[in-house]
């Protein structure tokens, strides 16, 4: 805390910290100085001249957003001279603002309007001027009306600090305008559509398209909840009018939301939502009633249990449901049905390896966004942060602007790798070699914390095994010279506050172990490792016991069983639960019935055609979801599900924080928890809850979320580096990397039903080739190509962009074509698939190879 000084503001004494701006000091003293260009989240530009104040002894008027307070300063914010000057500026602005407040959505929230009113400006002294710009309505989300623009520059500033940096002032003097390079439309300019510009615009120049003429500020009801997309779990405030969502914003001005968070909620209102229970009759899913669907589903599940035993039934849950739903679901299966066969999408997205990672480091290692922003050295491993986890991307950008050093390990060039001090562009799948190399360089270069490392278990063994590791092998496998690794090790090792950030679904469990080793070796175990998660409630889903290995509270089944028998009042199965892979293998024989909530395993699991075959061989399948997914199409009973915007409860985000989810709109269908409770009643296991709150209470009495990680073993793991993913061979010589895109998301169920899909070229149905490969394969931009793997082939279109090295192609995961290609090779230890690197061959469609 800096020193307090005393200033006089409008005749009152105020104590304020030294070094802040006059406008901030006034705010602390409860005085709002009118301002247009100034924005707390941005550096001052001092351009609007509305925040002028008088300072005793100073010559002329002073912009309060540009001058810092000094001890003893006497400030007047509301003298006649100040008001006159403000009035002059506002009248000038108003004469260039041919807006009609009558039909403007910003009416009531417009800052120009507010100050004009406060200063009593009835009519501007100057004649009106209309700039005559055409209104840009060419993109699906942001309406740009530069006739209303007052050139305050907030949008330009925020686009530079947390956006894609695509807009700026063009031209000078009287014809100044905010525009993209060459004045192209936003969608062609490289804009990420984070909408930060729109959030800070003080007038109606930038508005949400969806909101136009559907309700104004004072009619809007606001609900604070959590974004349902990636694991960042950003706070989201929905503005609703008459039970319909108008817009989503951050909690305060300048809070970052990405395109998915700010605009991608519209899937909630999609006409393709399932609104009635469906029952398959003569092979066709037909509308039915809840009562009939519950009766039917319960009867079939009970039949299977009676004839073959409870362990012939399994469950699978997505990682985007609330803790309450995940808890109820596993309770239904374990206590209601009597089986431990329950698994979740978490297994496809980095679990249970992440549980081990934090157990190795202790819960001090948990990282918040603020920790990243304050860091001085960052190591990014296979995390395209600006695209897949945009909030992390912004944190990294902020850290960089604070002078942090950045090392990126990624096969491709990304927006963030271009800002990196060192970009280790290693071969796809060679992370383990790169990190082992780094570990060795840290040790050999003596940039590690010897005192701390000695205290950790197996330090001598680590030294020995790293002694055996040849840097030549690392160089050969990764394609990276050891000098680069040495430099990177130095950059990271010498940082005082460092964070390792990695994409949990893209790296192997062994890579995670190596990351833990690096943390331990350098003694950086406090706020040091952030796994980026792709789904909103991964930690919560796992902690609620929706993973085969664990009961709620990540307790092993054998030790926790008796506790839960007591709590739930039934005998529980002693048999260990099966993972989804094991269930898949047994479908048709050892697994006959499945219950799935909020997940699309046919689309999410690798080798989708064999997955679909397995699901079709089930005796009975019930799916509860918001849309008719690939899996739901195979179901015998489909129950309508709700989205996060219609749920109450909690989630745990990637920062390991519990966040509250609240219903922003009236649920379209029965809430998920009510559906589970109703079905449970039909299988003769009564779960008695009247609201989500009661479920939360029960959870609280059994486990603490997020679970405190007490154990910190502090032991090195000694990983033998291997190439992860499928290795190319003669027949399949290329590597296909499956990943996220800016406007697509994971299995694409939500983004496909949102206007986001209009921004994703070809709705994500493409493969990116670099120009060298395209030339040698004879491909041109947009042509049809056949991509073949050992499992199958797909036809898609080619896009030529140079961000990956030769021999590697990129396919967006949101269109879900990779499922046909991907390998279901499984990491045996963790039973999770490694499906994001696929060996493929490529040929131009219509040309014989």
């Amino acid at each position: 805390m800096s020193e307090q000084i005393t200033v006089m503001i409008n005749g009152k004494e105020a104590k304020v910290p030294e070094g802040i701006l006059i406008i901030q000091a006034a705010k602390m003293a409860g005085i709002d100085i009118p301002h247009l260009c100034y924005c707390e989240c941005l550096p001052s530009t001092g351009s609007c001249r509305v925040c002028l104040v008088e300072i005793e002894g100073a010559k002329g008027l002073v912009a309060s957003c540009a001058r810092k307070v000094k001890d003893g300063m006497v400030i007047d914010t509301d003298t006649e001279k100040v008001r006159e000057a403000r009035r002059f500026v506002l009248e000038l602005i108003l004469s260039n603002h041919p807006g009609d407040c009558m039909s403007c959505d910003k009416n009531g929230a417009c800052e120009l309007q507010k100050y004009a009113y406060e200063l009593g400006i009835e009519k501007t002294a100057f004649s009106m001027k209309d700039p005559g710009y055409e209104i840009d309505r060419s993109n699906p989300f942001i309406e740009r009306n530069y006739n209303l623009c007052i050139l305050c520059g907030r949008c330009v500033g925020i686009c530079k600090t947390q956006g894609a940096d695509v807009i700026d002032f063009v031209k000078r003097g009287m014809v100044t305008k905010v525009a993209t390079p060459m004045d192209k439309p936003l969608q062609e300019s490289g804009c990420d559509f984070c909408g930060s510009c729109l959030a800070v615009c003080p007038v109606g120049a930038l508005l949400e398209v969806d909101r136009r003429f559907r309700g104004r500020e004072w009619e809007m009801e606001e609900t604070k909840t959590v974004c349902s997309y990636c694991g960042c779990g950003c706070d989201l405030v929905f503005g609703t009018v008459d039970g319909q969502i108008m817009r989503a914003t951050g909690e305060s001005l300048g809070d970052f939301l990405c395109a998915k968070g700010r605009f991608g909620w519209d899937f909630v209102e999609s006409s393709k939502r399932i609104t009635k229970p469906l029952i398959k009759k003569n092979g066709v899913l037909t509308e039915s009633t809840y009562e009939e669907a519950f009766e039917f589903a319960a009867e079939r599940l009970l039949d299977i249990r009676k004839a073959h035993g409870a362990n012939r039934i399994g469950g699978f849950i997505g990682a985007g449901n609330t803790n309450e739903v995940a808890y109820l679901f596993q309770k239904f299966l374990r206590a209601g049905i009597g089986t431990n066969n329950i698994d979740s999408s978490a297994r496809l997205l980095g679990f249970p390896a992440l549980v081990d990672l934090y157990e190795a480091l202790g819960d001090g290692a948990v990282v918040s966004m603020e920790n990243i922003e304050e860091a001085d050295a960052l190591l990014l491993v296979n995390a395209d942060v600006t695209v897949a986890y945009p909030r992390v991307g912004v944190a990294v950008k902020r850290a960089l602007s604070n002078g942090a050093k950045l090392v990126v390990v990624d096969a491709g060039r990304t927006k963030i790798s271009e800002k990196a001090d060192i970009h280790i562009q290693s071969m796809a799948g060679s992370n383990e070699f790169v990190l082992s190399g780094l570990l060795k360089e840290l040790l050999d270069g003596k940039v590690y914390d010897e005192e701390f490392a000695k205290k950790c278990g197996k330090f001598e063994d680590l030294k020995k095994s790293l002694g055996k590791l040849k840097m030549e092998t690392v160089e050969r496998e990764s394609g990276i010279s050891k000098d680069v690794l040495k430099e990177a090790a130095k950059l990271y090792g010498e940082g005082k506050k460092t964070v390792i950030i990695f994409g949990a679904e893209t790296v192997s469990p062994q890579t995670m172990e190596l990351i833990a080793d690096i943390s331990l070796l350098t003694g950086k175990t406090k706020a040091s490792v952030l796994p980026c998660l792709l789904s909103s409630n991964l930690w919560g889903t796992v902690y609620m016991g929706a993973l085969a290995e664990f009961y709620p509270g990540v307790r092993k089944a054998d030790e926790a069983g008796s506790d839960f028998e007591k709590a739930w009042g039934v005998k529980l199965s002693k048999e260990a639960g099966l993972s989804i892979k094991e269930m898949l293998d047994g479908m048709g024989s050892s697994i006959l019935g499945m219950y799935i909530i909020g997940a699309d395993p046919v689309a999410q699991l690798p080798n989708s055609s064999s997955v679909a075959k397995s699901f079709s061989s089930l005796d009975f399948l019930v799916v509860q979801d918001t849309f008719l997914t690939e899996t739901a199409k195979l179901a015998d009973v489909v129950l309508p599900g709700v989205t996060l915007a219609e749920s109450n409860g909690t989630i745990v985000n990637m920062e390991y924080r519990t966040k509250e989810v609240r219903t922003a709109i009236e649920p379209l269908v029965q809430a998920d928890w009510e559906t589970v409770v109703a079905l449970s009643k039909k299988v003769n296991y009564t779960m008695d809850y009247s609201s989500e709150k009661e479920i939360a209470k029960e959870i609280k009495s059994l486990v603490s979320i997020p679970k405190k990680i007490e154990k910190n073993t502090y032991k090195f793991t000694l990983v033998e580096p291997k190439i992860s993913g499928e290795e190319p061979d003669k027949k399949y010589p290329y590597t296909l990397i499956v990943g996220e895109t800016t406007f697509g998301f994971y299995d694409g169920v939500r983004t496909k039903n949102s206007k986001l899909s209009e921004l994703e070229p070809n709705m994500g149905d493409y493969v990116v080739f670099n120009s060298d490969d395209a030339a040698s394969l004879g491909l041109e931009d947009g042509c049809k190509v056949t991509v073949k793997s050992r499992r199958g082939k797909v036809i898609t279109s080619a896009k030529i962009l140079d961000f990956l090295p030769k021999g590697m192609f990129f396919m967006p995961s949101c269109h879900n074509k990779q499922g046909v290609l991907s390998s279901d090779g499984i990491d045996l230890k963790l039973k999770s698939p490694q499906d994001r690197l696929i060996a493929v061959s490529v040929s131009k469609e219509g040309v014989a190879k």
Partner: protein
Amino acid sequence: MSSDGCPVLIVLEFLKGFAKDKMCGKCLPCMLGTVRMIDVLERITNGKGEEEDIVLLDEISSYIVDTARCKLGKDAATFVKDSLSSSKNEYEEHIKDKYCAQKSCETIVSYQINSEKCTICGACKEVCPEDAIVGEKMVSYLSDNKPYYIKNKKCTKCGECLAVCEADAIEIV
């Protein structure tokens, strides 16, 4: 300020040059205010100035001096202010009398034919693109001449007639 040349026009040209070259366009009072001053000055030099315009110019320039972010903008406004006080008469002449003493504000001045010098040759009428000149060519030994004169409402002060008159009969007043 140079003594030759109309002070109002000099200020106008100066502001136009400033807006085109030096102005950064970042601070609103300077950018928007200068545009307004140019508007007013153009109005005055076109003979359409109103009595309040001098006050308006004085106000705008004073406010810009008070509020602009940098010295460039303040200096430009100061230039206007100084001109207003040093050449008050000229501004008033422009506005009230629609008269430009330097005869450089083209739309304020008017063209007249000095009938004593005019030879009634008709050359001016032929070249006038606006048909602003009326009269008939003199025919020898005939009385009842219709001498030439310029209709001021139509005249755009293009100067064509000036160039063809051999008798220097067309005068700018």
